[in-house]
């Protein structure tokens, strides 16, 4: 979206005329904060929340010394970012566990926020951690909702308790009986989506709460929600005293300002995020990542973390040495490709790099991952000698490799050419600090 020019670029523009490296003046801060406010509003942060936030940050920022290592732009972003994290934050608390099982988790939210899918994801996550959860189908209104939960339960490998479209109170009573009989230690109760202003339905939730005395009441919120997020969260919190929030659909390109609004208004933290369609696509909430996302600054932290997971320090050093000494072969290249895959999809990674996503534009963000698979197949069809000394690959070898990998001669040629080019590039980068991989 052209509208969402990075905040950094805008601030740079404001400070570009500025040469002094002393303290930030009040006027400069005010101009900068206007940009920050627009960035927050475009991220769907509630306008009252944004206003209060800006007021607090302005006070903090006035008179602040511009650190030697930072430009004024970075300085302002640093202050804003820190305050955002503080506001979003609070230590991540794990899901409560009952002294006497079963632990009961009540899910609630508007229609279409993703409750049913999230029930499955929570179930799968708990199962992985050694618990024996079961899902309880209390959405008796939406057509085929129970069937959907059953299918989700199947995928997650978690049993589903359902009794058709009878009163939810009866269903949960039955579920409690089954829990003690079958030894389920956690019950995740799916409820119907409802508008926060529908009194009858909200009362149904209240009754469920009174009877079940749930250990967690989680409000599921679509991360794309706009200004109304505060009204929704406020109302649900007022009636049910929720214990936390789950943000869904964060794999979209939304900036997710709703997270900030909800935390500011209810004081309840986001606990988990839904990041995809698969049962494993659930992550604990990271305030620092959410902060940079809201500011449109990308998610470098996640990227670094993923890279750290994929590479040990020794591996990184070995790679650097090979690049420096130019002993980097196609076999090493193959290993790198696998590492990259472990870090997640390329599309995801590009989305995390600040500025890049907005530059490329969301629609082009999806990288052709099949090309990597093809590249791997080509290398795998080479002999060890060919991988180390690609220069020996001539016409007949090329033909064999193409046939072996199910690709065309052109593909093999292209890869060899790219590899040669990147070797050349490394040669030029004598210090060899960074490797450019041919794709």
């Amino acid at each position: 979206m052209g509208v969402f020019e990075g905040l950094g670029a805008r601030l740079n523009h404001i400070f570009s005329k500025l040469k002094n490296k002393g303290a930030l003046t009040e006027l400069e801060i005010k101009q900068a904060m206007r940009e920050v406010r627009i960035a927050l509003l475009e991220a769907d942060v509630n306008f009252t929340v944004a206003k209060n936030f800006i007021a607090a940050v302005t006070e903090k920022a006035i008179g602040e010394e511009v650190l030697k290592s930072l430009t004024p732009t970075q300085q302002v972003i640093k202050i804003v970012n820190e305050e955002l994290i503080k506001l979003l934050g609070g230590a991540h608390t794990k899901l409560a566990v009952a002294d006497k099982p079963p632990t009961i988790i009540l899910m609630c939210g508007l229609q279409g926020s993703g409750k049913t899918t999230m029930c499955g994801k929570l179930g799968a996550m708990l199962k992985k951690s050694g618990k024996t959860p079961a899902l309880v189908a209390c959405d008796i209104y939406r057509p085929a909702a129970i069937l959907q939960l059953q299918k989700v339960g199947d995928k997650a490998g978690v049993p589903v308790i359902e009794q058709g479209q009878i009163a939810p109170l009866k269903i949960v009573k039955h579920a409690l009986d089954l829990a003690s009989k079958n030894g389920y230690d956690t019950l995740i109760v799916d409820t119907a989506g409802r508008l926060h202003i529908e009194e009858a339905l909200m009362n149904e939730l209240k009754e469920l709460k009174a009877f079940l005395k749930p250990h967690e009441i989680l409000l599921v919120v679509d991360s794309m929600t706009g200004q109304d997020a505060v009204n929704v969260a406020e109302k649900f919190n007022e009636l049910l005293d929720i214990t936390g929030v789950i943000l869904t659909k964060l794999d979209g390109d939304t900036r997710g300002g709703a997270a900030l609004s909800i935390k500011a208004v209810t004081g309840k933290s986001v606990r988990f995020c839904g990041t995809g369609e698969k049962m494993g696509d659930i992550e604990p909430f990271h305030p620092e990542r959410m902060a940079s996302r809201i500011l449109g600054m990308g998610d470098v932290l996640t990227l670094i973390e993923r890279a750290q997971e994929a590479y040990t320090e020794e591996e990184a050093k070995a790679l650097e040495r090979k690049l420096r000494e130019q002993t980097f072969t196609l076999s090493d290249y193959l290993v790198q490709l696998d590492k990259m895959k472990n870090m997640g999809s390329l599309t995801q990674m590009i989305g995390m790099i600040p500025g890049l996503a907005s530059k490329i534009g969301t629609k082009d963000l999806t990288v052709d991952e099949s090309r990597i698979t093809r590249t791997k197949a080509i290398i795998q069809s080479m002999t060890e000698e060919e991988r180390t000394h690609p220069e020996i690959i001539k016409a007949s070898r090329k033909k064999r490799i193409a046939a072996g990998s199910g690709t065309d001669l052109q593909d093999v040629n292209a890869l060899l050419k790219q590899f040669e080019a990147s070797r050349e590039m490394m040669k030029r980068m004598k210090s060899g600090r960074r490797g450019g991989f041919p794709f």
Partner: protein
Amino acid sequence: MGFFSKIADGLKRTKEAFSKKIYELFKGRALNDEFYEELEMALIGADVGVETASAAVEELRDRCFRKRLSTAEEAKDVFAEILKEMIDYEIPPYEYPLCILVAGVNGVGKTTAIGKLAHYFTSMGKSVVLAAADTFRAAAAEQLGVWADRSNVRIIKHEEGADPAAVVYDAIASCKAKKTDVLLIDTAGRLHNKKNLMEELKKIDRVVLRDYPEADYRSYIVLDATTGQNALSQVEIFNEAIDIDGIILTKLDGTAKGGVIIAICNEMEVPVLFVGVGEGKEDLLPFDASEFISAIIP
């Protein structure tokens, strides 16, 4: 037209309702900077977005200056006019056979909207077929099946995980054979930044264009009224993939006033056609720009 009363009903329950704020803002105020600033904030608070909100307020300033207006009361009608100009479109009438493709991100209410559209057309005496081309989400076809029963219309569905384009192909063949007036295609919810899923949508689009050229073909995007500025991005990217002809705005019965559609109509030039205001099958109403504006500026 019942939708105004339903919206008004919703407003009564919400103290902080946007329209109430607007209402008070236009009462006995002088047209000064403070007024314009507050108006802009109120618009942003209704998801109108920074760009469109400031454009609308600037336009109001300009017109009030030229007309030499000095009080907010006088400015109210001018402002309503400005917003209306932003969202009012001439919609070409339907011709039959008609084919409507319904797309959108996950959880906006596509299947429900189709169910209501089926009722809308059957109550006009048209024959309707539903194509369950959401073969991805668990139980989506069953959900659509319930809606098909409610309006007593035919539904074409395949196995879960089947090729959605194949479902559409079969549905078109069925419509041709039985001379059905209206084909409604339900598609899987997809986040617009997922390239593969958008390609799948394009494939469905190609099948309709190729195999059903005699039909009046429209593609609609369903938007959730509670969605914020991301709705702009949704419309933009879906529009690039399949040429969106209009918007169905759902869940307008909450406290959200769907202000983002003003931004979309203004910045993307895609009209709103229907609004969903409840769970019943008749709770889908043709959009009326004047009524919408008078609902937000009482």
